[in-house]
């Protein structure tokens, strides 16, 4: 079984049943996973920030929810993915308590959902918020997407 790690500001796809897609150590970041049951195509993107307004030119679209989600979904379609038969989940979006400057987690969640809605898509499962780190895992063989907070049991999404 090959573990494909989806690191900060990366997106990865696979249609091999022996693969798992994993985003480790999500803090305020969001991992968005999509799995098409009919073609067994899965994708995952690891988004860091909500808005690309902070960059002067669009040279790192995958870092941001507003530019990353469209790039990710278009690539999913290009690879043969079908939205009608797919499961979409998100995990991450943790927040620091006590300071609004650092509530990037909440902003990320809202921005990802907004970007999905532009494609008439919404999430069917989520494990978000709080202040713990998480891992999101797509098991291609079982077709199971699960999330785990460190030291806690796995949640199937």
């Amino acid at each position, binding site marked *: 079984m090959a573990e494909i790690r989806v690191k900060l500001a990366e997106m990865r796809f696979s249609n091999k049943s022996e693969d798992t897609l994993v985003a480790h*150590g999500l803090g305020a970041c969001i991992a968005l996973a999509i799995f098409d049951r009919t073609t067994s195509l899965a994708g995952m993107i690891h988004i860091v920030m909500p808005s690309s307004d902070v960059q002067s030119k669009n040279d790192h679209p995958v870092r941001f929810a507003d530019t990353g989600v469209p790039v990710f979904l278009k690539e999913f379609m290009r690879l043969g993915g079908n939205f009608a038969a797919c499961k979409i989940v998100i995990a991450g979006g943790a927040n620091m308590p006590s300071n609004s400057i*650092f509530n990037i987690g909440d902003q990320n969640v809202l921005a990802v959902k907004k970007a999905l809605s532009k494609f008439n898509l919404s999430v069917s499962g989520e494990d978000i918020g709080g202040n*713990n780190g998480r891992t999101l895992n797509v098991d291609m063989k079982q077709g199971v997407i699960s999330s785990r907070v460190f030291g806690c049991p796995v949640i199937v999404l």
Partner: protein
Amino acid sequence: MVDKDNILYARIVNKITELMPLPETIQKIVDLTRNPDTPLKKISDALESDEAMATKVLKLANSSFYGFSKQVKTISHAVVCLGFNTIKQMALTAHSFSVLDKQLDGYYLDRGAMFQHSFGTALASRLLATKMYYPNAEEVYLMGLLHDVGKVILNQFAEQEFNKVIEEYNKGGLMFYEAERKVLGFDHGDIGSAVCQKWNLSDDIVETIRCHHNPEEASAGNISVHMVHIANIIVSIMGLGIGAGGVDQKISEKSLSVLNLKEEDISMLMMSIMDELENDETLASFRNA
């Protein structure tokens, strides 16, 4: 401050030299550079006597951060170009990479995670230092790199006590370092600080490592503690090597105010950290060294 009668603390501090020794070459360089009148040649000689270390320092000297147009080929050239303080930081940085490349089960940090968190915090600390025109950005980089070094010792030496820390933290209501303080009477910052003291590092480093979760406890003139405090938090938010405790940390308003940081600065800093992570060649070269 740790209670002077804390037996566990005393036991751990007594073991530091054995658990985390500083290589002889580096200790010699640290001690030599404490005296500003030390001739540069003495530093070069000390470094050249350790070939592996000399190679690592040359790698750092030739990294893009210093921007030399010509390759720095010899240690004596590096010492002249960079001055002995920078050389000392480089030798310590090179050594720290090996110290931090560990798996810490107690903190839910796998080997890559501890390393990534320390390296990310070092980069972010240096970015803040540069933004503030701080005169010794390399020292702040080293502070960022070493800020959690106490976790390595605690994970190794206080395994049994650590289960109680996890239990206490899981009850809720305390941040992870507060749970350490409640159960052990000290936190990983105190142990990291003791490591730096044993290594004869500067008072600023010793204090910054101790107070990185509570910068208000540091002396008024210490600016670096605020840089490392904020850097640690931003890097945790980004999920770079976060383990037990997650992003559950208290941000010091004083640090935000001292560094004059606004929301847009935090976003820009996150961007710069990602740029540096993509471009920095130090990480790869040291992990493979």
